[in-house]
């Protein structure tokens, strides 16, 4: 082979992006790396380090605002930078497949799976029957047992994991030699992520596809990649076999990244919130069930999303709620919060309940500043303060959550995901709640922000004595923070009790499956 076993070589690639004023900002700095034939190469780094930009540059999907300043991208012996957009488009799908992060927006909702996929084939072959065969074969390859049925479905009738499978099928349809996977599992739960990762691994081995795997899930990278590169500020600062990188990182940055991503309870200084023997019950639910109401003309659903749920949370303790996606965790949380009316059962709460939600993008109102949010929360809690008192109080709260006074006048879009989540927590604290319910508060954040949010919530729990109910996929965090854990499956509680007892000696299949998937979680 003319390219000496390297399917892709990126040499001294420099890339700039125009900012709002039109001035170029360097995103990729002298980037040099290569992907060998048939390997899975992992690319890790903090958010904003240029991982996705690298993927876009290779696939030729950069926006008009980005420009390659210098360097070469040599794919199968040809320099892609010199090719015309038309030629590069031709390569896409045929030789280079791309899988993106968000499976929910990558399929056309108005077309069936089959027509979504046949779009890819129709550009290259006219034979419809053959194309259909190929799609069904590929759907089977990605693990669908009944490809005929799946092909007829519309995207909204598929789960996140199924959609991601369809997208992988689409990317691999034309037998590409390189597959670029940009955070393919970050919006999926751990059990589903694991199966997607296994699928990619199999495809790499059976079809001989090389994969460039971008992720900030270091455990996944460790378990699946042959080699790993660490990226910082647009340059590769470390690269080796995954075992060596993870075992003995060469640079201090990699070591720090590893430490943060482990979310090691000891390193973070997290301790469990435990209730005192005679602590009063602050939140209890008795046999509640709930379902989503249908429209005006249709009768309500008869199958409830959650049913017969009973739980009890004592003051000062921290309870974890786990379960795979779609098991009704969020519905339960919303019912407890009073956002959904339960069909049956009673909920008793003493004191105020505040909530932290998952999505840092929508946790704050984009039209208002942080100060407005805090003021709103203060006024809603019915307390009166003079202007000066209020300012000092806000500054203190912001300091508690790890922000500073300058954030008071910021709008949500001027802050990072982690900062927004901290501001949302500050809003909770202003209300002086007795219970904080956190629904996946860190899963949409990068590793460093995750660590700081976890530490913050744990501190609020142990130092302020605020009771916590934490919903998470991340068993390690639950194990570190919570003294009690509740496991849910298909709308019911399957196991509940002391964290150590439940997680060390699982009684139910659900818990066992969650524990098994743990090795792949971030």
């Amino acid at each position, binding site marked *: 082979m003319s390219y000496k076993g390297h399917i892709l070589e990126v040499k001294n690639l420099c890339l700039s992006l125009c900012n709002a004023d039109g001035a170029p900002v360097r995103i990729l700095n002298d980037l040099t790396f290569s992907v060998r034939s048939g390997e899975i190469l992992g690319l890790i780094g903090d958010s904003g380090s240029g991982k996705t930009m690298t993927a876009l540059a290779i696939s030729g999907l950069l926006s008009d605002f980005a420009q390659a300043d210098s360097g070469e991208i040599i794919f199968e012996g040809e320099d892609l930078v010199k090719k015309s957009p038309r030629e590069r488009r031709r390569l896409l799908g045929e030789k280079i497949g791309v899988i993106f992060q968000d499976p929910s927006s990558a399929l056309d909702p108005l077309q069936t799976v089959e027509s979504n996929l046949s779009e890819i084939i129709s550009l290259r072959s006219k034979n419809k029957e053959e194309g259909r065969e190929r799609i069904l074969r590929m759907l089977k390859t990605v693990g669908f047992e009944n490809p005929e049925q799946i092909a007829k479905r519309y995207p909204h009738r598929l789960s996140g994991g199924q959609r991601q499978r369809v997208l992988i099928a689409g990317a691999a349809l034309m037998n590409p030699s390189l597959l670029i996977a940009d955070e393919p599992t970050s919006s999926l739960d751990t059990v589903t992520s694991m199966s997607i990762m296994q699928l990619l691994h199999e495809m790499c081995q059976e079809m001989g596809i090389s994969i460039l795997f971008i992720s900030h899930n270091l455990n996944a990278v460790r378990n699946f990649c042959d080699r790993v590169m660490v990226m910082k500020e647009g340059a590769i600062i470390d690269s080796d076999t995954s075992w060596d990188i993870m075992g003995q990182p060469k640079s201090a940055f990699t070591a720090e990244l590893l430490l943060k991503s482990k979310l090691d309870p000891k390193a973070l200084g997290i301790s469990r919130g435990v209730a005192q023997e005679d602590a009063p019950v602050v939140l209890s639910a008795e046999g509640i069930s709930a379902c989503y109401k249908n429209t*005006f003309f249709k009768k309500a659903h008869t199958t409830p999303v959650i049913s017969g749920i009973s739980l009890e949370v004592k003051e000062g303790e921290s309870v974890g709620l786990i379960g795979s996606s779609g098991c009704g965790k969020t519905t339960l949380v*919303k019912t407890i*919060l009073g*956002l959904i009316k339960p069909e049956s059962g009673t909920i008793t709460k003493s004191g105020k309940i505040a*909530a932290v939600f998952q999505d840092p*993008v929508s946790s704050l*109102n*984009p*039209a208002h500043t942080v100060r407005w949010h805090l003021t709103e929360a203060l006024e*809603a809690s019915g307390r009166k303060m003079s202007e000066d008192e209020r300012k000092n109080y806000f500054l203190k709260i912001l300091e508690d959550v790890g922000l500073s006074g300058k954030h008071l006048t910021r709008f949500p879009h001027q802050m990072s995901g982690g900062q927004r989540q901290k501001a949302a927590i500050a809003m909770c604290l202003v209300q002086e709640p007795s219970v904080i319910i956190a629904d996946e508060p860190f899963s949409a954040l990068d590793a460093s922000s995750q660590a700081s949010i976890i530490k913050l919530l744990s501190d609020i729990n142990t130092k302020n004595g605020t009771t916590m109910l934490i919903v998470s996929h991340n068993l390690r965090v639950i194990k570190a923070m919570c003294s009690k854990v509740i496991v849910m499956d298909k709308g019911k509680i399957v196991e509940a009790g002391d964290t150590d007892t439940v997680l060390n000696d699982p009684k139910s299949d659900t818990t066992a499956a969650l524990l098994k998937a743990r090795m792949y979680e971030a």
Partner: protein
Amino acid sequence: MRSSTASRRYLYTGGILLSIVLAFFILGLFWTPYGINETDAASKFLAPCAEHIFGTDNLGRDVFSRCLVAARYTLLVSFTGVAYALVIGTLAGLIAGYNGGIIDKIIMIFSNGIMCFPGILLALVAVAVFGPSLFNVIWALGLVFAPTFARVYRTSTIELLGRDYILQAKLMGIHPLRIMFVHILPNLMSQVLPAVIIGLANMTLFESGMSYLGLGVQPPAASYGKMLSDAQSYMVSAPWLIIFPTLMRVCYILGLYFISEWVRTSVKGGSK
């Protein structure tokens, strides 16, 4: 804010066209070369010349003076009409979207009902019943336009309801009215702005149509629609009577469309 060359071109073109109308409006407030109803039997049907730059009509009135004054009514009707529609539409849309259920159904059936009829017909009926006057034209057109705004607001409100910050506000026990107007409303501005601009243009067309039929702005006041309807018998012999009022309206409406195009392409539409 993303502003490409093409969208800036929209802004400049629209801006120039609108500033012509605006200049006419401001000038007309303070000065007109002749009285708008000043007739001069000696100078009927004068083609544009040095004394009467837009010519004169069948009664010898100066067309330029009348164009200056008519700009006032065009702006007045379009702006107050849209403001009226915006207030009704905002209230109805927010309440329908926020509450959902039966309230939503009633409001939407009512607004769809209005939308079923051709707008001009409804406005004509209202004016025919309550008598032709500027005030009646404004509220009738406002009522016809309100459902458009109600729909925009309702859809966007429903979309925002699921956002975490609205859930958070509900949890904090904030009053629904405050959630609607302080939490939700500011986030809808980006969707409403283009609707308002297009509304202004459509309102002008409707007003001209009604004045043309003799139901809008009443004489002796001048309006572009009225000027057209007066001039139609002399269209061939004195084309300037048609050309100038039409040009003014074209400037206004085209200017608004260009500006709305600029808003659409450069201001990030919708909240992410």
